[in-house]
């Protein structure tokens, strides 16, 4: 994978057939010294969060559902059996938290970088520990009782759930948080980023979201 480039993940045939517009888009940061993700975000990132906080009011939090990209995710949520008014789409959840907290609160470099990409582009991005992955990521259906992640205490999945998986395990339920074993932490040296492009979301926005995360993480690593 190129340093700042993006790649496309795989989709199981039944998923591809059901959702021809679904794409898993991937990017990966170059290796950095251990501990580079710990500590506070750089001042520029925190400043950007503050600036974005000022742009979101209560009324906009409701209006966001009418914008093209958030609306596309809401429709996709319905198509996969999620109710976006109960399980909010990532952008709506972030905007709601901003209203509750009074601003986009900085919670560390990785969190902030993903949040900025989400608010800037409306496309959610998730981060994994690239060294914990086994092969490229893709979207498939889960097997009955299959663990989310690996290890004895990994929770079991029901059959037929849509998951993001590598060659050996499911690493996250679609639109859910990654398993603790695969999630990027402060010990992570290489971050694997992935975003889900659904029908109605232009590829450019997805790539911009990944590029934004990649660039900010690269700067922070230097």
């Amino acid at each position, binding site marked *: 994978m190129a340093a700042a480039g993006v790649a496309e993940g795989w989709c199981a045939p*039944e*998923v591809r057939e*059901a959702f021809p517009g679904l794409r898993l888009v991937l990017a990966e940061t170059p290796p950095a010294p251990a501990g580079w993700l710990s500590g506070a975000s750089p001042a520029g990132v925190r400043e950007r969060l503050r600036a974005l906080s000022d742009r979101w009011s209560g*009324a906009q939090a*409701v*209006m966001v*559902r*009418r914008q093209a990209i958030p*609306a596309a995710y*809401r*429709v996709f949520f*319905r*198509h*996969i*059996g*999620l*109710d*976006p*008014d*109960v*399980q909010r789409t990532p952008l709506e959840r972030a905007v709601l938290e901003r209203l509750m907290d009074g601003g986009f609160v900085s919670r560390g470099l990785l969190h902030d970088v993903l949040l900025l990409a989400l608010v800037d582009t409306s496309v959610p991005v998730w981060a994994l520990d690239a060294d914990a992955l086994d092969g490229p990521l893709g979207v498939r*259906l889960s097997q009955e009782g299959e663990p989310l992640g690996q290890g004895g205490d990994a929770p079991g999945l*029901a059959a*037929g*759930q*849509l998951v993001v998986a590598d060659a050996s395990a499911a690493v996250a*339920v*679609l*639109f*859910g948080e990654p398993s603790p074993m695969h999630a990027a932490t402060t010990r992570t040296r290489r971050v694997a980023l992935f975003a889900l492009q659904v029908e109605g979301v232009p590829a450019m926005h997805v790539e911009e979201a990944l590029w934004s995360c990649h660039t900010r993480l690269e700067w922070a690593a230097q």
Partner: protein
Amino acid sequence: MLSDVLSDALRRQGRIMVSTEQQLDVDYPAGERAAIDSLRAQIAKLERELSGIVAAGFPHVSGAAVSERRSSPRLLSLGELEEIRDRLVQRVHNAQCRTGSRAEFERRSRALLERMKLEPGRYKFVRLPAADVGEAGCGVYQVRPRLGIVGMLAGWWELKLSSGCPLGWGPRASVAPGGGFKSERAHAFAWP
């Protein structure tokens, strides 16, 4: 009957018999696929419609159904998609009803405001939030006596609009001209 036997055999093979002379090939998976696509398109249209109604009716109209439970992302069957479509139709209908009743409430509030302007003496101390007539902000229309006690004695009443949202440090205890707390007479109807 031979035609029934033939019809059953063809149906099992994924074909249906229209008549003994004419046979129409039907690809069942393709037909189901088309039905699923059609249902998804309907769900997308309903979702956009619901979002539009909720956004336009904010904060008085909500699109959320109280009884909805959390679920897991999965591939939905035709039946499940139909169920989602039907629930969305119901929610759009409910949201439209709510929008309609809100519009009626605001119309009645505006009519009351007009009457308060024309005959303030008949609506002494009646308060009408500006939000109830569809205006933004926290202002409240209230019929008050001009020049305080003098106005009360002389029957000089006027409609005033309060200055807006309360300050950050909270509301002040307001005292009516007579010394007691200000009357909080609600107007004739209220938005539920």
